[in-house]
């Protein structure tokens, strides 16, 4: 197992791109279209700005690390108990995100391609990411680089095919700022899409330079993924109209199903979309599992952490299997919105405060 864990700019970019692709097509569009009756791009831009701000905060936090991983440094600075209290919401958030991703994707497979296959069997797809996560970060990164070569062109092709049958007048009003989304909890539930930088912050040591590179990679990936995200939202709206789109569970799959061209060799593009998304979802799940394992390894002894990883996997699987319905998945996302906001904004500030205080204490002790 390769022990070196230096993610360069391109690797971070690839990971963030895959992260966007994995979440943007499924739950996010239905949240966004139901959260506002004004223009859709406004909440999108809002969250983009928030995400960039959050990434910048994390970059500031990570630049203080001096080539050590985040949690190890925090533990060194303030001791294990305060760090574990600080990280508990982070842990719960990661767990919830993993369960939701697994279950929602299995549910979509069940709705579209394999209706009678049991959910427990579909949830078993987490075994492959779990084995990959136990191998380290670099195998995940290498797989991500291979998948980008296959999955991103396919997604681009699907989006371009989706440009057929568009009626641009259905997108009117283009500029209507209706602030009703701010009080809508579905708007906050949609924050699940923008958490990529939290996960990459946990998996490797950082220094000032690499934190800056990572932040820039995130910004670039956000920029490149924006057409993708906008496409997943706007293409169904411009085809079906906003009223029908807000009623659909997964609007983009229905949009893909409605495409027909004589020369397309495949009749049912929705199936191709779901199959391509599997590549995204598997790598991102491996990444999240690895982040969880790293978190636990910081606080537990080596043998304990192996047992803990296995039990974590089982816990994720069982939870994902026993969520009763799609509405409950959405409920979980809405309830954990508060956790996500904490992790995005409050955690880096607290972390920076702690590190700053610890640094000053050490200086006083030295002087």
């Amino acid at each position: 197992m390769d022990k070196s864990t230096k993610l360069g700019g391109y690797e971070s970019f690839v990971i963030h791109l895959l992260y966007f692709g994995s979440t943007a097509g499924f739950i996010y569009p239905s949240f966004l279209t139901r959260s506002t009756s004004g223009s859709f791009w406004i909440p999108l831009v809002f969250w983009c700005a928030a995400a960039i701000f959050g990434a910048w905060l994390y970059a500031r936090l990570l630049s203080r690390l001096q080539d050590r991983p985040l949690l190890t440094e925090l533990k060194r600075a303030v001791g294990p108990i305060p760090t574990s209290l600080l990280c508990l919401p982070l842990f719960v958030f990661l767990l919830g995100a993993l369960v939701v991703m697994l279950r929602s994707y299995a549910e979509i497979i069940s709705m579209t391609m394999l209706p009678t296959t049991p959910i427990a069997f579909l949830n078993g797809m987490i075994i492959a990411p779990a084995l990959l996560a136990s191998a380290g970060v670099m195998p995940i990164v290498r797989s991500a680089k291979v998948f980008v070569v296959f999955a991103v062109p396919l997604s681009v092709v699907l989006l371009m095919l989706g440009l057929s049958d568009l009626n641009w007048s259905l997108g009117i009003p283009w500029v209507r700022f209706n602030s009703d989304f701010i009080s809508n909890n579905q708007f906050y539930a949609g924050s699940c899409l923008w958490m990529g930088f939290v996960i990459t912050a946990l998996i490797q040591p950082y220094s000032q330079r690499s934190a800056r590179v990572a932040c820039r990679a995130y910004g670039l990936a956000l920029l490149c993924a924006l057409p993708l995200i906008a496409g997943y939202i706007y293409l169904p709206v411009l085809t079906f109209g906003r009223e029908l789109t807000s009623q659909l569970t997964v609007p983009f799959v229905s949009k893909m199903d409605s495409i027909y061209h004589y020369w397309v060799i495949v009749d049912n593009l929705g199936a191709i979309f779901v199959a391509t998304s599997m590549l995204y979802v598997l790598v991102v799940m491996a990444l999240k599992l690895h982040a969880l394992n790293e978190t636990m390894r910081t606080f537990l002894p080596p043998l304990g952490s192996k047992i803990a990883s296995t039990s974590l996997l089982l816990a994720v699987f069982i939870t994902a299997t026993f969520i009763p319905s799609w509405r409950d998945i959405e409920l979980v996302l809405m309830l954990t919105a508060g956790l996500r906001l904490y992790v995005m904004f409050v955690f880096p500030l607290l972390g920076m405060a702690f590190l700053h205080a610890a640094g000053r204490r050490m200086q006083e002790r030295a002087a």
Partner: protein
Amino acid sequence: MSDLLTFIYRLDEEPGTPSLYEQLNEAFNDSADYITEWIGNNEETELILCYLRSLCSSVKLEYLLQSNEHGDISAKLRDYRGNDLSEGDFERCKKAICQGSAVLCKRDSTEGIILDLEYFHGRSVQSPVTENVLQGPMNAFTENLDVNTALIRQQIRSSKLKLWEYRVGEESHTRIGVYSYSGKTDESMLAQLKERIAGIRTEGLQDSGQLLRLLLSRNRMKLFPLAVSTERPDRASTELLAGKAIIIVDGSPFALSVPSIYTDFWHSPEDKYVNGNVAYFLLGLRFLAMLVNLFLPALYVALTSVNVDVNRLEISLAASASREGVPYPVFIETLVMLIIIDFITEAGLRLPKTISSTVTMVGGVVLGQAIIQANIVSHLLVIVTAATAITNFIVVDYQMGLVQRILKYFIMIGATVAGLLGVVFCFACLVFYLSCLESFGSPYLTSLRPKKGAS
């Protein structure tokens, strides 16, 4: 040239202990090709030459033993021109005789002089058997390590080409050579390689493929080949200049090139000699052939049993028509056809050239046509199987092709259970597995873009 006479004078005798001559006779007791010859007298003792007739060169021996009947050894031996002489006790002399040297000893001495008279029996330098190209050098490695060294040195005439030799195998004492080009090869990888070679414990070593397995025996068996094996000196020298180490085993014409990453297995030796664009096109074609080989049977199973809605209506009707009357489910008939094709491939490997064309006809025409008419498989499946079989042989590396033959069964099982998603999941698992593999320190899926500094 050292003075043979002084060596002879230095041979001492120890009374009481059995002499070298007697010990050697006992060791080679039942070997019919063990010859001991009296070659002359030196003052009062007899000089005896002991050797294995099958290993020694008669030419060199005759030169040595141009005799005048009177046994005046001093004059004869003064004329000896040969390799370095060395002395040795019983163990060394025994090993030396097994290596093809002759031992010259006095009747009662405990030590002997070792003369290297080895003559290698094997093929001459011929054209490669497994790696044919239309443009490029046409010589290939042989089973003799020294000839192979010569072939490599003819490609790289530089003092930076370094060679280390080892002997591996407790009974076979096979020589292996490790070549590297100093300045380009990673020193730590080389050190690790030498350490691993020194740690090999085995009885016999016949081929470089076996050596590869022994080098990796610490870990679990890996599915994918971790070193490229090549028969061509030009390819070996290209790899050397690219920073890899070459291992050649005496007795095997295949050289191993370590470390090897995944994309190395797809480069044909010809790629550097033809037009660059053509080389990229062919590379892309090979990758496409690999994907077709792995996924076509699985896609057939997925698209005709689980995900029928992905097809066009016309294709579904054609598939349905072709399967009319076939009693087995799609998975079973695909499995049957793939196994039959593997039978035919295996049979084709071992047949003598004269009847292999008969087998082709039997396999292809009779079996393929008759099996459709007997309603055991559908015609669409025969097309799929034929395409799979053909693309299997587009793979450049033989070991990689063998691996693919196994993998396609697993991917087909995935397709049966979960259709198109099963295929994608198996593909993902394959990529995950490849990304965890490491070949002698380099990750298997290294980036295609050359990194600055690192290999």
